[in-house]
């Protein structure tokens, strides 16, 4: 038998109908829904008099607009209407929803895996580009637009064409202080933000095997920042240990059946990829973005690059524009960049492991006087509870952070958590685009522990100088 890649296995299992032009109708197992990209889809169904194909494929939650403060009613009437519309649509169609106030509510890409609603071998879609996150479970997971949300609701399928395959292999072990976030940024630095366009990425190699599920989710989450709609990691014991006993996961005999199948979800020996990229984990350092695209990234010990050295004219102009927007000058050390705000959260880095890593740096320390606001925003109500049970909330607050309720928050600032014009932020989110965190705001993407260290110093610093003593000598 021809050896198959993980992607090919997932694709083949889901083909309902193959068309002669190369497209196929593929079946969708899990549909995650949030308030921003679903109202027009529900309306479309209603106007066409169509029903939902399989209601129990849907898990819905409100996350983008939800306040992270204690307020129980959204003050902004436009945001409130959007969240109310989701609630009403879920009630109307009898869908499973974790609404605002439910202790399971949170960022859709955090709660899917947390509930075991994301399982290996599934196709998972959501009207959100960071759906690639769920590929950490050897699922074929990708973001779709609202028209496709409606298409999935009405037919449980999508018309698609198979992607090309790209294996990104990260060999060796990650050095101390280097996280999945740094791996993601290192990959983007290597292949560029369009490097994965048209491809599904499989992350493989010793360093990936060594990552927790949280780390794998961070990595797959950022696949879209490398241009790939889907990122994925093969099933191993780490995957199974994470999923066992999750509320939506199979149990008993069904679990045994499932895990036997799931263990086959890896690329076969000798499977051919359209493209392969290899990185050495040992060479990856803690990274910080300097510009307005995730590929504009350097090691924290490095300097802001000099556009004069860029031979490509369009690229050089892009760099100059980015430096202007970010108010930085070429060749300045990254550690000379002072910040105003710190955001620890988002579907990239708001899981328990992320909060632990940041708290380990913050313990016994205070944020610098120049930090106007430091936010810790857990990814879900359950992450928040778990963190509080470990006392992480007290460490964050003692350090001067605000300990907030779950949601997308300042990753994109659809709620009240935003940067003001000119403000500079160390952020654990995924996009440093112009205006992403607030009109005129300046975003530097980093790992949670790098964000925590920057909060303490007031400017970017190498987290390896801030790690707790027992970790440094370990």
């Amino acid at each position: 038998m021809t050896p198959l890649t993980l992607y090919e296995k997932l694709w083949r299992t889901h083909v309902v109908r193959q068309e002669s032009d190369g497209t196929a109708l593929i079946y969708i197992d899990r549909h995650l829904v949030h308030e921003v990209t679903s109202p027009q889809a529900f309306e479309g169904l209603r106007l066409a008099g169509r029903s939902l194909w399989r209601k129990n494929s849907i898990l819905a939650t409100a996350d983008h607009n939800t306040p992270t403060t204690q307020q129980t009613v959204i003050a902004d009437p436009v945001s409130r209407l959007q969240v109310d519309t989701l609630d009403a649509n879920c009630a109307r169609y009898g869908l499973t929803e974790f609404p605002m106030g439910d202790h399971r509510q949170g960022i859709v890409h955090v709660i899917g895996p947390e509930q075991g609603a994301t399982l290996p071998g599934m196709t998972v879609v959501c009207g959100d580009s960071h759906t690639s996150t769920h590929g950490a479970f050897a699922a074929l997971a990708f973001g779709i637009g609202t028209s496709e949300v409606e298409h999935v609701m009405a037919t449980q399928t999508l018309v698609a064409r198979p992607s090309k395959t790209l294996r990104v292999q990260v060999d060796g072990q990650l050095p101390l202080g280097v996280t999945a976030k740094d791996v993601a940024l290192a990959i983007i630095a290597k292949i560029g933000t369009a490097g994965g366009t048209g491809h599904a990425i499989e992350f493989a190699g010793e360093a990936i095997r060594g990552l927790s599920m949280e780390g794998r989710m961070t990595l797959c989450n950022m696949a879209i920042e490398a241009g790939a709609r889907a990122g994925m990691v093969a099933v191993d014991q780490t995957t199974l240990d994470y999923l066992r006993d999750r509320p939506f996961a199979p149990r008993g005999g069904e679990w045994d059946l499932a895990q036997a199948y799931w263990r086959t979800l890896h690329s076969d020996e000798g499977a051919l990829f359209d493209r392969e990229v290899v990185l050495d984990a040992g060479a990856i350092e803690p990274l910080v973005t300097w510009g307005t695209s995730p590929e504009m990234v350097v090691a924290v010990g490095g300097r802001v690059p000099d556009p004069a050295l860029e031979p490509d004219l369009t690229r050089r102009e892009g760099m100059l524009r980015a430096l202007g927007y970010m108010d930085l000058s070429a060749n300045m050390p990254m550690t000379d960049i002072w910040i105003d705000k710190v955001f620890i959260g988002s579907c990239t880095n708001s899981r328990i492991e992320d909060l632990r890593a940041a708290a380990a740096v913050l313990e016994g320390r205070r944020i610098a006087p120049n930090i106007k606001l430091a936010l810790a925003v857990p990814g879900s109500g359950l992450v928040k509870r778990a963190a509080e049970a470990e006392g992480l909330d007290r460490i964050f607050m003692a350090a001067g952070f605000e300990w907030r309720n779950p949601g997308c928050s300042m990753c994109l600032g659809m709620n009240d958590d935003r940067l003001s014009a000119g403000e500079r932020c160390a952020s654990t989110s995924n996009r440093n685009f112009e205006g992403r965190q607030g009109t005129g705001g300046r975003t530097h993407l980093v790992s949670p522990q790098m964000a925590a260290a920057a909060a303490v110093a007031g400017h970017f610093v190498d987290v390896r100088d801030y790690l707790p003593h027992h970790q440094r000598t370990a």
Partner: protein
Amino acid sequence: MRAFNSINGLVVPIDRSNVDTDAIIPKQFLKSIRRTGFGPNLFDAWRYLDEGQPEQDNARRPLNPDFVLNQARYQGAEILLARENFGCGSSREHAPWALEDFGIRVLIAPSYADIFFNNCFKNGLLPIVLPETVVDGLFHEVLTQAGYRLHVDLQQQRVVTPSGVQHEFVVEEFRKYCLLNGLDEIGLTLRHADQIRAYETLRAQQEPWIFGVRS
């Protein structure tokens, strides 16, 4: 969906690579529960000098005179000429909705981000891929010739410049068919409802946990 056949349209150049969907339509406008009305906020942060808010009277806002969409020669543009990786980032379909609402019918670029590219076809927009050198040439022409128009013919899969140079482009057969006829893809898929049900029955035997009802 509005059908698309051919146009002879005014071209507006957006000379930046990696234009993301946050730039095409900023987040604050995503709070709308409608599909229409996003045109006045297309490229909002580049187009206006103030910070835009939803449900605002955009006619009263200060325009950024340096931004191409505000320049007199590009008023009424239907073809947007762009650089590589156009539409990257967020999956928001509000981006093609805003382009369509503004009056754009065709995009021409060396490459697009996958989700955005897909979303365009669902909204009667035609995203055309042409080689980088050709796009470079078109940028040069549009910048040097006021009132520059291109003829775009989907049936023939051809872009024709004012001097008669023809550039052929590739488009997937099914997408072309839907776009030419303005077809609703859901209706087409539901013709295969029996096949979808048969698939589900088979799959439920192999992976019953996918179909189980839980809460």
